[in-house]
């Protein structure tokens, strides 16, 4: 789960990593007080998870109070941004990129740093790979002081800035460990004209699988683009919403991705992606309820040899249909142990069991384009 910038900075501040003076605002009425608190000029930053906020106009600089209020109004009202972070504007001597992430091959923590802060690290990696300093920290080992020095010398820092950087990195590493992070990133880490290092932005991503021991930041509606995605996440059912016509209800992520591909190959479009394999096979009704929210033209159900018998899955789907009475046509390809019984069950409800996945996809695409049912 990605944290919002203000949450990341909350962690930074607690850990002792310098952050700009800031104030979080959820109501337009509080903007004036926020500006008062952080001073002028100030930066107004939309608290949304999407990348490229600057280019998208979601981060604004304001010189005067009036300008700040106007821009905040625009973001909150016209751009529909729920939370704004007001921050003091910093003077920039230098911008640094620094992050702690994971290296799944080496299974180590990977520190990446670059003196080209502000740029995306992927861009630096392509354009000037020499500018990236990498330092791997072995599992079971602590971050050693020599590794911190390697990074700071690699960034070309000197004197006071070296010392400050050498205290910031271990704190980032500590957060990485303590919060089961997949990423702790500061970009840019600004060296101000008066010689301070300050985390001007912050990205922290926490491993969803560690939710049982990382309870501080619960998922919220703000983390998702739609109500349904949020609801599905709360229910623990993998679900993604798109703007096409065919809703997928498949068992197994790999199979779902394959069906997604096939729909595109055959010129169809996907309305939603829902995976109800594994332990979710008993939750056909819940899954179908979510699936129908986006008003798909067709529902396509594909499974093959899950832990549940095919007939059990078929019965679950039949029950769900009886309960929810979907208006969209339903195409099924339910295979595996008990598939004959499954076919019989489906037929009884008027569904035609299809045994070949591509056949089922073709049928769904035709139907989604208004073909005969």
């Amino acid at each position, binding site marked *: 789960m990605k944290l919002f910038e203000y949450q990341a900075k909350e962690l930074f501040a607690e850990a002792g990593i310098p952050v700009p003076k800031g104030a979080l605002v959820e109501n337009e009425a509080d903007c004036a007080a926020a500006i008062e608190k952080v001073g002028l000029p100030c930066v107004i930053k939309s608290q949304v998870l999407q*990348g490229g906020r600057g280019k998208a106009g979601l981060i604004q600089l304001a010189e005067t109070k009036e300008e700040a209020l106007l821009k905040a109004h625009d973001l909150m009202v016209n751009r529909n941004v729920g939370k704004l972070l007001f921050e003091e504007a910093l003077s920039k001597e230098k911008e640094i990129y620094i992050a702690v992430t*994971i290296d*799944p*091959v080496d*299974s*180590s*923590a990977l520190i990446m740093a670059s003196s080209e802060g502000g740029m*995306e*690290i*992927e861009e630096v990696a392509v354009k000037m790979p020499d500018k990236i300093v990498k330092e791997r920290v*072995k*599992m*079971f080992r602590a971050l050693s002081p020599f590794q911190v020095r390697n990074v700071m010398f690699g960034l070309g820092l000197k004197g006071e800035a070296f010392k400050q950087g050498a205290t910031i990195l271990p704190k980032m590493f500590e957060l990485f*460990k303590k919060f*089961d992070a*997949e990423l702790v990133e500061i970009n840019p880490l600004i060296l101000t004209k008066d010689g301070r290092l300050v985390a001007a932005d912050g990205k922290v991503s926490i*491993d*969803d*699988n*560690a939710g*049982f*021991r990382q309870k501080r930041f619960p998922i919220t509606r703000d983390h998702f683009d739609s109500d349904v995605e949020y609801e599905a996440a709360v229910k623990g059912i*993998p679900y*993604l919403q*798109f703007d096409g016509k065919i809703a997928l209800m*498949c*068992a*197994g*992520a*790999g*199979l*779902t*991705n*394959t069906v*997604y*591909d*096939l729909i*595109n*190959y055959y010129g169809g479009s996907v309305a939603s*992606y829902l*995976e109800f*394999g*594994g332990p979710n096979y008993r939750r056909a009704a819940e899954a179908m309820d979510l699936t129908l929210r986006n008003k798909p033209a067709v529902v396509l159900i594909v*499974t*093959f*040899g*899950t*832990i549940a018998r095919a007939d059990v899955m078929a019965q679950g789907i039949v029950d769900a249909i009886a309960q929810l009475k979907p208006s969209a046509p339903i195409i099924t390809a339910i*295979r*595996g*142990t008990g598939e004959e019984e499954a076919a019989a069950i489906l037929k009884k409800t008027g569904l035609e069991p299809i045994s070949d*996945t*591509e056949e089922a996809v073709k049928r769904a695409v035709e139907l989604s384009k208004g073909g005969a049912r």
Partner: protein
Amino acid sequence: MSIFIDSETKVLVQGITGNEGSFWTKHMLGCGTHVVGGVTPGKAGQQVEGVPVFNTVRKAVAETKADASVLFVPPAFTKDAVFEALDAGIGKIVVTAEGVPVHDAMEIRAAALSEKAMVIGGNTSGVITPGKAMMGIFPYWIDRVYRPGTIGVMTRSGSLTNEVTAMAIKAGFGVSTLVGVGGDSVPCTRFAELLPLYEKDDGTKTILMIGELGGTMEEEVAEAIEMRVFTKPMVAFIAGRTAPSGKRMGHAGAIVSGGKGSVAGKIKALENVGVFVADRPSAVGPLMQKAVAK
């Protein structure tokens, strides 16, 4: 005739007394697996499907000489259970749990590497040598998938494996050993690390690799082929060719971000080294025939 597991492998089941553990112990025995013992702390002296239960892996290994272990242990306790197995000298471990924290998986992988052990998973169906033995949760009774033969299958998926493997079987082939490395972002064993085993195995003539978007595992396979670490013919199917960037597609590891992990990149890397890449499951059968003829 197989890698990782055959009917001689002495298998331990950690978490044997739980619902999943006892259910799958029955099925593992049913498909021929030599399950010699189970471990659940505090349940020593019990039996599950005739298999004796021990309090600790150390004790179980001392009594049964087990050399492999499959875990039916919740994600929160998986790291401890794997460490317990490694500490007791077990060199082959399968983690079925879905939801093992990434930091735990990294520690498990690091420990396994340093102890020259192999941990398969998490979030996997496990390993099966059809007709002989399995460690995990396969519907091995589906004959049009789990038929013995000479294709080594390695996969990141569950259901998709059935879908794709069935296409190869339909074309007249069978499976030597199928290994699911799991769908997590840090699989404890990576595709490329299985290749030396398949290379050495006389029973494996070709490989069917079932990959997907995200990560770099398929690219590493291409590198291994390039380095001639692996020389047998290979067919690959990679799911997620049309997946949108930045979305996590079901599996924790199935995400393209910052331009990394795209299926197009994987296919290019594999085709460059002579791997036959199927664009859809139905293409797998014909390509496999072509690969074998090579």
